[in-house]
């Protein structure tokens, strides 16, 4: 069948791609579908673990299905620590960090890609260099600085750095701005638009996918951060979710089933957020190509 079609492509030009695509589609579904299963099945296994009693969790030979499911593990987690407060804290910090990083990285990326910025090369090099500095050791100097600012035990050390643009954000935004054809800017300049207007009205709408990408990434990074919140936050009512989850670990007592339950619960808000955001996120990504 396909051979016959190849011989007369001009007569029925629409059929060939359609069948091909259909064939490719089955393969794509298989590939994408099995991959997706592989991605999420472990979470199901973890869910089973979280519903076991401790005795069942450590049993040899192991039991796969919890019997009976200990739903009380989940309520126990809530009784042990104020997870609602932790979730709110994480949400506030991650949102503030995300807004800041998207704004500032877009501005800096724009300056690097689209404006006559002096010492552009040096700045880019510096940004790349910053990425190479292991943050683990910079914790001590940073801590000393934030202490001088009086910011210890506040959310500021976890938010403000994001308002000063991150190297990753800068690279991502610069890359996207570079991809926009020069003509847009020239046309706008002839129309009398200034740099700010070109940035906000013309260039920013064209890099929506990158903005969405950066938002999701920043939010995740902030949401999952462990080291910085550990060091900066001390008051019990200021902790973030990962700290809350890890806080359940005992030095002696085995309660991995509880920690697993808490870990899975800490995943729910960000999953919901992602599902809600995905519509915009994906639509942004889809519309980009058409204009580019």
């Amino acid at each position, binding site marked *: 069948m396909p051979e016959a079609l190849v011989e007369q492509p001009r007569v029925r030009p629409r059929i060939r791609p359609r069948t091909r695509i259909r064939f490719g589609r089955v393969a794509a579904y298989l590939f994408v579908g099995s991959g997706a299963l592989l*991605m999420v099945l472990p979470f199901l296994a973890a869910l089973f673990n979280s519903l076991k009693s401790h005795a069942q969790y450590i049993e040899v030979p192991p039991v796969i299905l919890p019997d009976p499911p200990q739903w009380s593990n989940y309520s126990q987690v809530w009784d042990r620590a104020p997870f609602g407060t932790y979730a709110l804290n994480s949400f506030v910090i991650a949102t503030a960090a995300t807004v800041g990083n998207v704004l500032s990285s877009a501005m800096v990326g724009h300056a690097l890609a689209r404006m006559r910025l002096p010492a552009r090369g040096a700045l880019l090099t510096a940004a790349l260099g910053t990425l190479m500095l292991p943050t683990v050791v910079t914790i001590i100097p940073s801590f000393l600085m934030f202490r001088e600012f009086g910011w210890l035990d506040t959310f500021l050390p976890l938010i403000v750095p994001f308002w000063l643009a991150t190297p990753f954000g800068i*690279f991502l935004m610069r890359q996207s701005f570079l991809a926009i054809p020069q003509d847009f800017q020239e046309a706008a300049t002839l129309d009398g638009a200034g740099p700010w207007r070109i940035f906000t009205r013309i260039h920013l709408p064209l890099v929506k996918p990158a903005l969405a990408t950066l938002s999701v990434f920043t939010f995740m990074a902030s949401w999952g951060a462990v080291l910085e919140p550990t060091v900066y936050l001390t008051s019990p009512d200021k902790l973030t979710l990962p700290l809350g989850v890890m806080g359940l670990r005992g030095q002696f007592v085995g309660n991995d089933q509880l920690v697993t339950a808490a870990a899975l619960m800490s995943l729910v808000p960000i999953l919901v957020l992602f599902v809600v955001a995905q519509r915009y996120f994906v639509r942004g990504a889809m519309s980009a190509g058409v204009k580019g």
Partner: protein
Amino acid sequence: MAGAPRKTLRTPRRAPRSDRPAHSARRVERRWAMLFATPYLAHLVLLTAWPVLALAYLGFTDYDTVSSPSWTGLDNYSRLLGDEAFWTSLLNTGYFALIFVPLQTVVALALAVALNQKLRFMPLLRGAYFVPVVSSWVVMAYVADAVFNPRLGSANAVLDWFGIDPLMWLDSPVLVIPTLALIAVWKGAGYMMVLFLAALQAIPQERYEAARVDGAGAWGRFRHITVPGVSGTTFLVLVLSTITTLQAFEQVFVMTGGGPGDASELTVLYMYRQGFEYFQMGYAAAIAWVLFAVILVLTLIQLRLQKRWVHYA
């Protein structure tokens, strides 16, 4: 910051008029550029220059974080040269990066190509790939345990179906790094996939049409249009993931703690131990510098090689 410049919109609007000298317009634009770059300038001063200066100094000292640092010259660096544990950690890190970076790039690109179609249930499918991405390492540690735990993990259960003896995964000195890399790909592929998706969307559809007319097959189109089309993003992904992988910390910190033995002791974890467990912040700073140098060299090599294969549209 966003509020103030809005008022000034009118000033630069006048700039392009022919009665104003061109260099003045350029000066105005430069000022604007500086203003746009201000957040990063502040970043450089506060979050780069200051820690770098402090670390540069601390590298030459014995600093236990409690009492004042005392100058010890090159002691830390000469100790590093003979510190076998440090070199082991560097080898471990390189091994980890060597598996993880290429594997993740290939998987992410393959996924992006597959997901870049108008399939039904696409949001749902795409969402599935994001579940590990949005999970923090703390969550991942417990989920990965459900898979790779030698006793109750599902990985060994699957091997058992095929009659294969159980593996020790993270508890095996041989398998620990490949397993960590596999878990890292599982968590990271969806992330990089998005970058590739955006790049794929940016490739003009006409090119594919033209290639089709010229009789190019699917592989040919992928090879000659998709691959060069996403080469810029590939480069970005490679550089960024190399840099972040060489600094990998959280994953091993929460999952293996460097074990078994020193089999998964990565350099940053070793550095953390020196600084935060053994009170040797000066030595940790010296390690940071050597690691920085290694990353710098590798990045420079990548930048050099970039010209050979990256095409900007």
